[in-house]
């Protein structure tokens, strides 16, 4: 697959440090990670969680592995992605949105003005509607992008979401120093 994958296997003498992030996704890939059920206890013996929606570490530090679900829909997503790339030795795009924008990319063929008006001006029951515009809100991108449009991605895990089995197989391969192989049945494009 990548150059990294051909590097010799090293059995980790310390726990691997892993960051996870959900960008323009639905948290479903994180749910699928949790769907490894009891094996979560085993996994947490082998890894240390860095920044993640599951912890209170807000910024990604130096990590062995970064798992990212969701595509890019605003400036904050791009910033988070770049910080993850800068800090993670291996970066993985997890799930349909990270791979190709996924369902949020359905807006890509629609004019933003049109979308705006639907949500904030002409929605039934909206009183005194206008478009939110505070500087605290990150700038939206004109289109939703997959992660590899902006940074190099080392591995791609397909699926909406990838199954817990696929995620487990991938992580255990990587932790053991093997080149991750997701075989037939573990790859799906739903």
């Amino acid at each position, binding site marked *: 697959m990548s150059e990294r994958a051909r590097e010799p296997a090293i059995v980790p003498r310390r726990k691997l440090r892993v960051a996870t992030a959900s960008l323009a996704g639905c948290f479903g890939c994180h*749910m699928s990670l949790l769907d490894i059920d009891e094996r979560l206890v085993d996994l947490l013996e082998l890894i240390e969680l860095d920044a993640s929606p*599951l912890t209170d570490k807000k910024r990604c530090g130096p990590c062995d592995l970064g798992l990212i679900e969701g595509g890019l829909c605003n400036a904050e997503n791009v910033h988070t992605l770049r910080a993850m790339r800068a800090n993670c030795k291996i970066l993985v795009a997890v799930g349909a949105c990270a791979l190709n924008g996924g369902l949020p990319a359905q807006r890509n063929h629609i004019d933003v003005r049109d979308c705006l008006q639907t949500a904030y001006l002409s929605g039934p029951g909206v009183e005194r509607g*206008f478009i939110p515009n505070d500087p605290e809100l990150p700038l939206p991108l004109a289109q939703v992008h997959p992660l590899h449009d902006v940074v190099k991605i080392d591995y791609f895990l397909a699926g909406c979401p990838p199954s817990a089995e696929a995620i487990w197989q991938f992580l255990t391969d990587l932790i053991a120093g093997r080149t991750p192989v997701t075989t037939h049945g573990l790859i799906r494009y739903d």
Partner: protein
Amino acid sequence: MPTSLDTAANPEALRRIVIEPVSRVEGHGKVTILLDAERKVQQVRLHIVEFRGFERFIQGRPFWEVPVMVQRLCGICPVSHHLAASKAMDQIVGATRVPATATAIRRLMHYGQILQSHALHFFHLASPDLLFGFDSDPAKRNVVGVLAAHPDLARHGILLRKFGQEIIRITAGKRVHGTGSIPGGVNKRVTPAERDELRAPLADVLAWAEAGVRLVAELFAANRALYEGFGTVRSSLLSLVAADGTLDLYDGVLRARDADGGILFDGVRCADYGARIHENVRSWSYMKFPFFAELGPERGWYKVGPLARVQNCDAIGTPRAEAARQDFLAQTLGTIQHAPLAYHWARMIELLHAAEVIERLLADPALLGDELTATGARGTTGVGVIEAPRGTLIHHYEVDADDLVTMCNLIVSTTHNNTAMNEAIRQVARQHLDGHEPTEGLLNHIEVAIRAFDPCLSCATHALGKMPLAVEIVDAAGALVTRLVRDAEAL
């Protein structure tokens, strides 16, 4: 608008503290706090910072795609969106009476969803604050810390969630983003073998659920002054109730109470939600601010979700959860409990209720029937309302003669709680931050109040914002990657 801390008079002169991202919740939110020179809090806001645009891009899609598309709003409660959309589309295909088997399978799916989501929220996300303390070591204040300090509790949480997810897998086809529910019914039977597989762990599930209720009740009793006062703000309540007034999370009529428990409206058909609920927009959040139309935006905001539901209903129709509800009500001597931290207690009561309902459904012969769908006179408007884990979820569609969606309006659970969450963190800021140098531990107090509502911020980001004023992002080689857009004309 609601209170003094909503908008500071002179924001540019104040010191800005930001909590970003709000963690151990689903989705993307941040909090900004403005302090003056004496560290007096002047403004507190919870911002929902992402947008999606579902309401617009659903337009033009065939209606039968919608239950599968819209569940991608949220990976934690996809079933709620899947079923709310299906219930709306039942009206499009004219299924005025969905077959009993399909209803039983959908209900099973939904209560499985409630159970797994409540378990996830409490055991995986929120419990570290309650078990270790709001200002405990942030490195251990997470599910890994719970596993180390309370391994049985954490394991039971994992297994409760697994049970709910397995129900969803069997009824919907897969655990996240299944396809089991369709306009007019469901597309898959439940076999006796599948039913038996789900029955096997029931005794354990009920025991773990009861232990969860006990744990939260004990935490509450041990810290009563803190728990009852923490971020507490009075407001109205909204939820579905069954026709007989009991708790029903799948179907029913809309009921609202004022902050003292008096009925504001009751028996309102789901299709008439639009006459009761209007929405406002604020410049600083992509999440809209709903309110009861008859009371207006100043006074008409309300809470939804477990805390609203267990107090809005007349009773819970399963014995263990009703007994737990009576214990809960006894704490406030019949007055309405408004404390955000009481959400956790109510959530555990609902988790127990869900386990009991699942037990009943698995014993119901209708679950194994063969009649899965119904159709009738074609409709053009569908409104589906369901009680998602986090509260009332409203899906409203119009469909044209070519079967394409022409209008979509979504009011998701977390959106209903928008003002309540903002007011709760303002209250916490007054109680705990005012005059102090904000430390990590103090700032986590703000997040504790947000987490109590179990917000699902992806759900709440379906709306799409802003009009173009372009900024361009280029990659390292100088090639254009994308453009950022900023509204130039909106105000």
